[in-house]
């Protein structure tokens, strides 16, 4: 079994007396694709935010690669090797597509701050060529010099994915990567993610509503309900778990 990359130990989180998460234990192992599922209000988003250190747990600890995440600023967490793709794409809307990706590459190369004042930000340089290739691989090759803000929503997500991968992270967090997508687009996204997995072997944590996506991609699944982990295991175990069916599948009728 692979070593643990993200270790969530006995985490509680209360918002003004409301238990968003109680006693959550979760180990994400290196190289696996781990899906976190659960009905609305189960605490998925809270857990994700705890995973990336944006929300500090009321109790318990979060260790990534042996390091405490809580209390670190987003850029520090990113520097540790955690990349996150948002449900609503967060991109540099006023920069071109290739500039977006180059920024991501520079950050990975240079750390949080380096005053690169007199060199040139050159799209024809080495970084630029790599960025162009990475974009072409995910089908954004035609949009290199378009403003990122003008892309369609799906393309923005793809761009964000390219940016995240460009940083060569240890762990990729995907927040509902197919939300609001048509079936065909969902399938394309699944293919893309599979492809990425095959090429890089990266650890992926995915939060998803769509069971089709989850069962197509996940190696292991954690089911949340009411802020608690009610089941954990490989997809086959989850499918047959009566607790899960009651809490989740029953509701969704998948």
């Amino acid at each position, binding site marked *: 079994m692979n070593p643990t990359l993200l270790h969530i130990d006995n985490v509680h989180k209360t918002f003004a007396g409301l238990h968003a998460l109680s006693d959550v234990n979760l180990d994400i192992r290196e190289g696996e694709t781990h899906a976190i599922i659960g009905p609305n209000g189960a605490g998925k988003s809270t857990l994700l935010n705890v995973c990336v*250190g*944006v929300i*500090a747990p009321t109790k318990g600890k979060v260790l990534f690669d042996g390091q405490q995440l809580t*209390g*670190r*600023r*987003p*850029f*520090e*967490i*990113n*520097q540790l090797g955690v*990349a*996150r793709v*948002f449900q*609503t794409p*967060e*991109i*540099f*809307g*006023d*920069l*071109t597509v290739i*500039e977006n990706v*180059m*920024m*991501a590459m*520079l*950050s*990975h190369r240079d*750390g*949080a*701050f380096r*005053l*690169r*004042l*007199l*060199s*040139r*930000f050159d*799209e*024809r340089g080495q970084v630029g060529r790599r960025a162009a290739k990475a974009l072409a691989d995910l089908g954004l090759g035609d949009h290199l*010099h378009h*403003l990122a803000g003008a892309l369609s929503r799906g393309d923005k997500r793809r761009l964000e994915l390219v*940016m995240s991968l460009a*940083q060569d992270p240890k762990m990729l967090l995907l927040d509902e990567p197919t939300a609001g997508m048509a079936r065909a687009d969902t399938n394309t996204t699944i293919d893309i993610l599979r492809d990425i997995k095959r090429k890089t072997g990266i650890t992926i944590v995915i939060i998803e509503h769509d069971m089709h996506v989850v069962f197509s991609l996940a190696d292991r699944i954690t089911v949340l309900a009411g802020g608690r982990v009610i089941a954990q295991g490989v997809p086959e175990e989850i499918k047959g778990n009566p607790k899960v069916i009651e809490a989740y599948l029953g509701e969704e009728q998948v």
Partner: protein
Amino acid sequence: MKHISKTADFILLGCFALAVALGPFIFAPIGAGYPDLLQKFAIYGIFAIGFNILFGLTGYLSFGHAAFLGVGSYAAVWSFKLVSMELLPAIGLSVLLAGLLALAIGFVSLRRSGIYFSILTLAFAQMCYNMAYSVLTPITNGETGLRVLRTDPRYLDSALGYSAKMPTLFGLEITGWTGYYICGVVLIAAFGLSNAIFRSPFGMTLRAIKSNQNRMGYTGFNSRPYLLSAFVMSGMFAGLAGALLAATDPLAGAERMQWTASGEVVLMTILGGAGTLLGPVIGTGIIKYFENIFSAYNETMLSAMFSFVPDGVREPLVKFMSLFVGDGWQLTLGLIFMAVVIFLPGGVMEGVMRLFRVKHTPRVRSLGDSPQRDMLGESIIEEMPSDYDSSGAHKHPAKNNVTPVAP
């Protein structure tokens, strides 16, 4: 933005240098071909170029940049008094002190963004201004202003046995055409430097901060040192401009630090086009030119100008027009200010681009739109209670038990 090659930048810089060199001939036909005015173009151009590095690239609107200009002036005059009449030590001291002040002010102010940043910088600049008139009178000489005296010690000069009546650069007096060309060379250098910054990864980082500061954090950038660097740089440019101002007229007064002076540099930058390379220089030229022309007009000149108008109409017309010239120039300035913000938010450069149908990076949502990150990684929502046009992501719930009643 379209890719711009190194060669293109060198050509731009070359053309710019040529324009500066031919300044006297270019500006002669519009009646601005004399050294004092062109010198002002150059000096305030440097000021605006520096301001643009902060405002144009990051979108952080500082309302206190005049403080750095003022500090630069005082530092230069002190250098003329105590060290030497030579310009270089004065520039060194001015840039250093302005940079240090910018470091201190920026360190505090950049903890906030949006209008809070503007108000903080404004508060700091007012503080400097008030202090220059009160506690710091021994250094600033209060309302009289600080001037260079013949009896000043000038230790370096007396050690070297050098003496000059006016500030000099390598023995050349910084007056008349010599003065203009000295300032012109500094302007070209400042322009080249700003060009390099715009094209550098640093410049791109600043533009990315302006575009989406959240994303910067998630991409692994710590925005604050970048912002602080930009702030200090623009402060140093202002200090440099202040030193040149003191060199061409060795008298420093606190009125250079007043917030209307800060407002003027904002205007020059946005009039030309914030975030563009040439914009600030063009904006400066327009403002300083009109200031010069308009404030020189008086009623007699207006009467002469409108001599073709019938008598009955002429007098009220002249009366009306005289509101906008002479002492009334400030009124015209305010009107230009409003007109630019209302009709041409992208400035003259955008207007030109539109004319030539060149695709231009559209104006960026600037202040207030980019939430900042706090120490704990929590998002500071720089949000206004009724910022109803924002994405809606951070909307306040109506939490009070206020029941709206239909009219």
